[in-house]
């Protein structure tokens, strides 16, 4: 049986005055029903662009320049816009970071929900209202009838994000792309929203791509994680492996730079420098200027994702053999910091 979503060698470019800028450079992943995949990386790694590419929403001057996106027997990037519209927002829904920005402030929750149903379904207004109520109950909104009459500003941040999730569920999608869904929320609310999303994947038989910069959140929710750096996936595998025995030096650095990884009060392990600008991605391995393990080969050839010790665990690094002993690498990194 095929996968729900199969992305192969996806490439996204932005046509700028001085030439094309590669934002996504050949990434591949798959997703099944009920599966949750985390896309992790720092700002500018290309996580959001990947999300937008899947629903073909890259706006000019950006364009998908290569690769394929297969979803439920459709080749999404060759689909005419008309056909795409029957999939986007219908079979695939997207949830964004800031619920205040995604909800229309001058329309009631009810109007926005009913509009969405009517755009995709041949239903009467009262049927649409019933569907809206059903979904509001699914996301545990208290007194849903009352909420339909309310405007977004009358609700709290957590409640708004629940409404956004309810709207995403209206059309019974097979895939949800959640782009930093809890970044704007407080931790106590975040815990509730994450629990809800992961529970919905089970009950509604959906796949979910969770895009976030927060490794801790991702590791709690998803089965698999893909770590992105400068437009590529540099490590991917089961969440437990990525968190407990990462193999790419960047992932190792990222996990150990989290406060909490080391003794309170001691210096944090830091990765020197910063993510390269997309206009000046270093040749060879994009991470090599920041990498403690770099060798001449890292500057010349770009490493491909190769299987490492565990099944389904891949890392793109020439020096992957040296990362088995992580303590040694961490000692090196911490020595540099002193």
């Amino acid at each position, binding site marked *: 049986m095929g996968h729900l979503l199969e992305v192969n060698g996806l490439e996204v470019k932005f046509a700028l005055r001085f030439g094309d800028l590669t934002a996504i450079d050949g990434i591949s992943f798959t997703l099944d029903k009920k599966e949750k995949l985390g896309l992790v990386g*720092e700002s500018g790694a290309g996580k959001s662009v990947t999300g937008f590419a899947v629903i073909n929403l890259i706006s000019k001057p950006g364009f998908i320049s290569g690769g394929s996106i297969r979803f439920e027997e459709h080749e999404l990037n060759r689909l005419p816009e008309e056909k795409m519209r029957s999939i986007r927002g219908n079979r695939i829904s997207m949830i964004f970071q800031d619920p205040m920005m995604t909800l229309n402030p001058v329309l009631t929750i009810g109007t926005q929900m009913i509009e969405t149903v009517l755009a995709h379904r041949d239903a009467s207004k009262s049927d649409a209202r019933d569907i809206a109520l059903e979904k509001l109950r699914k996301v545990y909104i208290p007194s849903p009838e009352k909420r339909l009459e309310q405007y977004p500003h009358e609700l709290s941040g957590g409640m708004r994000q629940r409404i956004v999730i309810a709207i995403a569920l209206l059309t019974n999608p097979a895939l949800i792309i959640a782009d930093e869904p809890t970044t704007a929320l407080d*931790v106590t609310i975040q815990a509730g929203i994450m629990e809800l999303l992961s529970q919905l994947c089970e009950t509604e038989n959906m796949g979910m791509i969770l895009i976030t910069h927060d490794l*801790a959140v991702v590791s*709690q929710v998803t089965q698999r994680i893909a770590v992105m750096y400068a437009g590529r996936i540099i490590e991917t595998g089961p969440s437990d492996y990525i*968190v407990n025995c990462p193999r790419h030096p960047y992932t190792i650095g990222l996990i150990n730079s989290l*406060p909490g990884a080391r003794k309170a009060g001691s210096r944090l392990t830091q990765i020197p420098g910063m993510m390269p600008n997309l206009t000046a991605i270093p040749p060879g391995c994009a991470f090599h200027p920041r990498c403690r393990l770099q060798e001449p080969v890292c500057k010349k050839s770009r490493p491909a994702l190769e299987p490492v010790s565990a099944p389904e665990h891949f890392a793109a690094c020439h020096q992957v053999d040296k990362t088995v002993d992580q303590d040694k690498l961490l000692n090196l990194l911490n020595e540099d910091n002193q």
Partner: protein
Amino acid sequence: MAEQTALLELVNVVKHFDISGTFLDQITFKAGRITRNRTIVRAVNGISFSIQRGETLSIVGESGCGKSTLARTVLGLYPPNSGRILYGAKRIDNLSSQAMLAYRSKMQMIFQDPYASLNPRMTVKRTLEEPVKYHNKGIGASAVEEKVSEVMRLVGVDPKWAERYPHEFSGGQRQRISIARALMVDPEFVVADEPVSALDVSIQAQILNLLMDAQEQRKLTYLFITHDLSVVRHISTRVAVMYLGMLCELAPAKEIFSTPRHPYTKALLSAVPKLGAKDPNYIRLNGEVPTPINLPPGCVFHGRCNYADKRCKTEIPITTKLSEPTRVACHRVEEGKL
């Protein structure tokens, strides 16, 4: 013993904001009578604590709990409605702006968003020079220049870049520059309001290391405002938890994370995402944070607390000292039932 060496002391500090607008806005016509209503945001309601020299006191809480207001009140950016603020045993909340000047160079602030807190039309050099020149009238040009390059080196920004504008720097670099600006006048006390919240994880580690180094080298005292509990755990000596303008709990960092006492602290800590923790078990709170406009009577937390009883609904809990350094404002803890 502690009281004598305290660098800063807050006694029952209250800060309310009147948001009722003009006289005409306040008037309503109800049941045949004209009434005047004031709308008051009770941001900070009677907070007392002291900060010892050389320590890092962190204030944590969710959005809207009054932590930033408190920080600004401490610095005299907002005058408190009542209560006293003492700096080195001298009262500073009622000083004239002229008399306050002497304290301004001892107390500095670092803001959250390095994109908003640096003047885009000033070069780094001008930004850094300004406070020195202002606080040391008649200082020589070469002395200023020396100071600028000394501090720039300290925060890890090459002094060669002094003539550049903020937009030429990345987020992490900009935050280094705002830290440099705070350190220019050799302060003793620094208020850092969410200094790493806008930064990526790998950059966040760099900035936290910088803040810890600066503290060690210059014997700084920090008041650290943040919602990120893993950061708090890493850098704090003591932690104060705020909820709706009240202090729930104040305890040494180690203790608060190992044995939180207040029900809100417990819930807050349980909701923090932990790396690789599957099946997170967090404490669910009822409802949502009430607005600081209509504070609940009694304990502000009673409506959401799983342990609240009759007394909590009527009587405001005062912070009781448990064992010496730990203070908790909760009837149930005081009664020994929690």
